[in-house]
């Protein structure tokens, strides 16, 4: 494959699904078959091209990759910035290194499985449903074309993010995925629920869940935006390869300082806290289960939520340098991860919704990955990311199959009130839905970390090994704390997984719905098998080189290849004492292995002991409810975080917006001031008008009237009689003559001077 073909493929991988979104929305929306076929075509072509690219990368061999991790790269000048000749224009493009390659193997595959599954999930081929914007149990969803359009957009955005060679393009893919998440959680936008207090499992309507998801992650995203901008200004570039070179990082430690780097890292990490549903921004993920199950599988298990982890894996060099120079940052990240892991594991134990358990399980497992990064376990985090995606997607799809079976049973017995997702109504589905059972079991075992034959075991074990090593070898208390917390979480994980399997599949059906369930169609069950294969086998690529103390050679392909992505830069940083460790193979230790085995097997056993040994009967309460009492309620109500947030953040914001900012400030203060000014001017105008009316108008009128009075007086002289006129004129003549004489002959002057 020539360089150029590889570059074109790198662009086509995300472009295909993105374009499909537009094609479906603009042209094929009314043809359902064509729509999903287009979606399939796009994602399968991305799968093929993605795998070709990945194998091309791996084919270079890890020694080559350690020197030259980026195998395929292609970028364009995107954003104008200053003089072109100065080279500041923002360049964006695709880059394929081993980390991207392994993501290119997982993401398109999982997405393809889900696309296949979705055709069956939305009952394609059945009579067309009439409820637009609501679930159409048993009938084909009328908006199925829109579904595939949005899923294609999502797939394209995820692939864009994975292939992005710079932080901005990553953010673009990140945000578009957020929009897809919002749209797909709210896919059944018209669905309404009765009062939550009357529901056995309280739910919020999908449209509200969608807003909750978007807004919670938006809190994280605006902080991440600040982090990205800080990053850009500090490094002068957004490109990963340029920013994460040894020289750039070394310069940053002096120019920006560890305080600044700490802020930068935490701001960007905030994005992960939101997107990967870590405490305290975890509240959106359980409600995101309101979306159709394929959505839960791909967006909220395999891809989008793992994007948060992908981000911190991608910027690991920055994180490693920061946590070495500013240990507080490491503590923050690790503790958030570990706390989230254990907190959500406790909540999962008390959930009754089959998807709810899986949601909290996802949050918990993401906590594992975040904690791993917090203590600097790069490869372990990436490994768990990949394996988790496979088995979690599997579990979700299988749960969707279960729900479909239950809904079929509901249609059969005409019961539309019992919640088909409530595990308390399930039971005995092992016989009714064998394929679903076995694949669910495989996924569950992988999640619990069943030793050796499931992928989850290998990836979890590596995290434990890394934490233990740092405690023993470096004396890092944080690593020990993480170790203990994650071990406890792993125990709970195995426990609640066994609980879930027992409640769902074992024993006898506890309701008519379960009694009349049947296996799902092939569209749905075949992808389960596909994913199950990976849930088992994916872990075998990460078996440690020195497992059980024996040197097996370089069998830990995952470590060597994915580690090669940052091998060189970490080695340089390590040599300059800017990071604690470079990428190296951990020496084998029995403690973490034994711990993994104990918690996994112990948790499964306990779960079986409580729930599986004597499966629950109909109407029988949860055996943990009585002994735990209020603790159980606390867990079942999810530690009351939602109620707290409503009281502290959401309620006040609404009040602030409506009553204070708008009514009080804008209309009351500002407009009030303006109206006051207006009133002053009106008053001035009023008085000026009065002045004009009284003083000027009336004044002029008065003068006019005086003239009339004067005229009236004078008119009396006009008697009309000639003789009187003559008399007056004569008198005047005499007076005038006298005056002339007086003046001319100086008598006037003499008269005046005598005074």
């Amino acid at each position: 494959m020539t360089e150029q073909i590889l570059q074109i493929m790198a662009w086509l991988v995300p472009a295909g699904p993105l374009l499909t979104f537009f094609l479906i929305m603009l042209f094929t929306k009314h043809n359902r078959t064509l729509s999903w076929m287009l979606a399939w075509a796009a994602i399968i072509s991305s799968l093929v091209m993605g795998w070709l690219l990945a194998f091309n990368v791996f084919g270079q061999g890890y020694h080559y990759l350690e020197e030259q991790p980026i195998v395929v790269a292609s970028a364009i000048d995107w954003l104008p910035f200053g003089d072109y000749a100065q080279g500041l224009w923002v360049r964006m493009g695709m880059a394929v290194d081993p980390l991207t390659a392994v993501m290119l193997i997982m993401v398109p595959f999982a997405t393809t499985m889900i696309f296949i599954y979705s055709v069956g999930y939305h009952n394609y081929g059945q009579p067309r449903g009439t409820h637009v914007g609501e679930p159409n149990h048993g009938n084909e969803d009328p908006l199925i074309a829109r579904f595939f359009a949005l899923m294609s957009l999502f797939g394209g955005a995820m692939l864009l993010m994975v292939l992005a060679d710079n932080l901005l393009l990553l953010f673009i893919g990140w945000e578009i995925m957020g929009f897809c998440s919002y749209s797909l959680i709210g896919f059944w936008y018209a669905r309404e629920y009765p009062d939550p207090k009357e529901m056995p499992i309280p739910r919020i309507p999908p449209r509200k869940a969608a807003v909750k998801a978007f807004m919670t992650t938006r809190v994280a995203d605006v902080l991440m935006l600040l982090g990205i901008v800080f990053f850009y200004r500090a490094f002068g570039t957004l490109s990963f390869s340029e920013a994460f070179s040894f020289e750039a990082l070394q310069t940053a430690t002096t120019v920006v300082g560890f305080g600044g780097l700490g802020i930068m890292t935490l701001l960007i990490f905030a994005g992960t806290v939101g997107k990967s549903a870590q405490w305290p921004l975890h509240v959106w993920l359980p409600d995101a289960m309101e979306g159709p199950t394929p959505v839960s599988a791909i967006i909220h298990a395999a891809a989008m939520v793992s994007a948060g982890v992908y981000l911190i894996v991608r910027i690991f060099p920055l994180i490693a340098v920061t946590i070495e120079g500013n240990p507080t940052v490491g503590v923050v990240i690790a503790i958030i991860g570990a706390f989230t892991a254990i907190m959500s594991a406790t909540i999962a134990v008390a959930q009754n919704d089959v998807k709810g358990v899986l949601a909290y399980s996802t949050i918990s497992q993401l906590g594992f990955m975040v904690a791993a990064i917090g203590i600097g376990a790069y490869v372990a985090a990436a490994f768990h990311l990949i394996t988790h995606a496979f088995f979690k997607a599997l579990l979700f799809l299988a749960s969707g199959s279960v729900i479909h079976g239950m809904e079929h049973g509901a249609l059969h017995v005409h019961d539309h009130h019992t919640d088909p997702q409530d595990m308390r109504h399930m039971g005995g589905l092992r016989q009714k839905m064998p394929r679903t059972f076995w694949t669910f079991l495989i996924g569950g075992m992988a999640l619990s970390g069943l030793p050796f034959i499931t992928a989850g075991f290998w990836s979890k074990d590596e995290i434990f090994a890394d934490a233990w090593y740092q405690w023993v070898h470096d004396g890092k208390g944080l690593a020990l704390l993480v170790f203990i917390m994650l071990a406890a979480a792993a125990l709970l994980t195995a426990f609640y997984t066994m609980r879930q399997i027992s409640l769902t599949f074992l024993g006898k059906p506890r309701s008519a719905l379960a009694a009349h369930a049947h296996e799902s169609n092939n569209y749905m069950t075949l992808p389960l098998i596909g994913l199950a294969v990976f849930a088992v086998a994916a872990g075998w690529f990460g078996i440690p080189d020195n497992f059980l103390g024996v040197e097996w050679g370089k069998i830990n392909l995952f470590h060597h290849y994915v580690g090669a992505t940052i091998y060189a830069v970490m080695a340089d940083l390590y040599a300059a004492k800017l990071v604690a460790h470079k990428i190296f193979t951990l020496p084998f230790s029995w403690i973490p292995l034994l711990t993994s085995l104990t918690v996994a097997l112990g948790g499964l056993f306990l779960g079986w002991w409580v729930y599986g040994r004597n499966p629950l009967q109909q109407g029988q309460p949860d055996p943990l409810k009585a002994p735990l009492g209020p603790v159980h309620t606390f867990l079942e109500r999810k530690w009351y975080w939602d109620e707290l947030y409503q009281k502290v953040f959401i309620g006040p914001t609404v009040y602030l917006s409506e009553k204070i900012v708008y009514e009080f400030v804008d209309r009351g203060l500002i407009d009030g001031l303006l109206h006051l000014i207006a009133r002053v001017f009106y008053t001035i105008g009023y008085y000026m008008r009065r002045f004009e009316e009284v003083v000027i108008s009336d004044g002029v009128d008065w003068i006019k009237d005086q003239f009339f009075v004067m005229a009236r007086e004078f008119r009396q002289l006009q008697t009309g009689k000639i003789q009187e006129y003559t008399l007056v004129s004569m008198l005047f003549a005499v007076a005038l003559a006298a005056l002339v004489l007086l003046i001319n002959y100086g008598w006037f002057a003499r008269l005046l001077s005598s005074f």
Partner: protein
Amino acid sequence: MDFLQDNLLNLVIFFPLLAALIVFLLPEDEKELIRRMALGLSLAPLGLVLIMWFTYDRYDAGIQFAVFAEWFPAIGSNYHMGIDGISLSMFLLTTLLTPLAILASFTIQEKVRMYMSLFLVMEMAMLGLFASLDLMIFFIFWEFGLVPMYFLIKIWGGKDRDYASFKFFVYTMAGSLGLLLSIQVMGIATGTFDIPTLMQTWVNLPAGGTLEGTGLPVDLVKTVAFWAYMIAFAIKVPIWPFHTWLPDAHTEAPTAGSMILAGVLLKLGAYGFIRLVIPLFPQQAHLTAGILATLGMLSIILGGYAAFGQWDFKRLVAYSSINHMGFVVLGIAVMAYVYGLPGSSTALTNDAIMATNGAVFQMFNHGLSAAAMFFLVGVIYDRAHTRDLKRFGGIWTIMPVFGTILIFTSMASLGLPGLNGFVSEFMVVRGTWGIFTVQLALSMLGLLMTGAYILKAIGETLHGPVKAEWRGLPDMTLREHLVIWPLMALMLSLGIWPQWVLVFINDTVTKLFG
């Protein structure tokens, strides 16, 4: 052809006036003819601007297509007009939005002739302002743009149109008073109103001296003049707390009136900052940049919160304009800080170039998305005769095409990457980080609320079960599609490939700081 080339700028500016006259001479009852004639004639300036666009010399990036004619040599005011990258983008925006607004106005039934004529006259005023290189001419066009808008709101507006039109007119005019006085002072002090000349002579007036003919100290005069300019333009942008005229004016104006008001008229204020305030008062602008940034921050935050608190769809979109223009103000604040900086610093200059690019681009982008949003509000209002979000619900099921288009447009308004709003917001954020970090960080609260109010608008309108009173509402007509699709295509293309507009802006801005 030569005539076209030589007089391109004059043609672009005054053709709408000619069009208004032609339309005005048509008989009032020929409504269809009037509408079509107005639409057809309004496309001509767009064509001419496109010619300008493709003949603009990017290497020069300075004032081009200049026109100079003596007008009042006695006071030093001449008809001096010209275009650079920034004004060219505004030209494109104006000539693009006017035909779309006219097309959106086809539902107006009373006094169609006067309506269309007023629109075209307003277009002339806006174009003339963007091209002005003389303060008197600028002011004339500035005031000219107010009157048609006043009538548009007053005659064809909503329930509270008397209050809204009056408030809009008087508030803006109150600001203009100071502006006129300051312009006069500048003219008297330097003997000219020519902007490029003033950028040398006025700016370089000896700081400690007194102004000839008045005996007042130069510093005092400049400060007062600066604040007068600032207040006038702050009212127009609008910047918090001078913003309260906008929700009333936007809400009561007819749909197309709101489109142009939000789309172009607000940009006149921002343009005034970039073209006049900062280049003519660099030191004062530098000193008050912090205040400007803080006010921009308040616009973003409080505009966002207020928008979230709305239950009137149109008023929500109106407040969203304040929220978005706040980013423009942040960018302008950075420009003000760096432009008047006594020394020079590459890092700060780069910040300023990025921020100014972002601000101007945000002006362009917001013009598109705000116009689109107001249009869509008009679409639903034409059918439902209400804008009350509490009454809406389930519209997506009844009007699926409208719903999808509304979501697309809302996402552009929200700043979803892939669409145009994000690019300009990112640029402003990048440019502001190093200089006004605190204001920027707090502004993120406003950006958070942007998501909240957009989702509120979409959710209340489109989601939820279908409400009986809205059954049977017809989906979008061909005419309505013709209005919105160009805007959507631009929003998407600028989100994916912002270069084709941004290069013009970038070239001019780089030269400005170079």
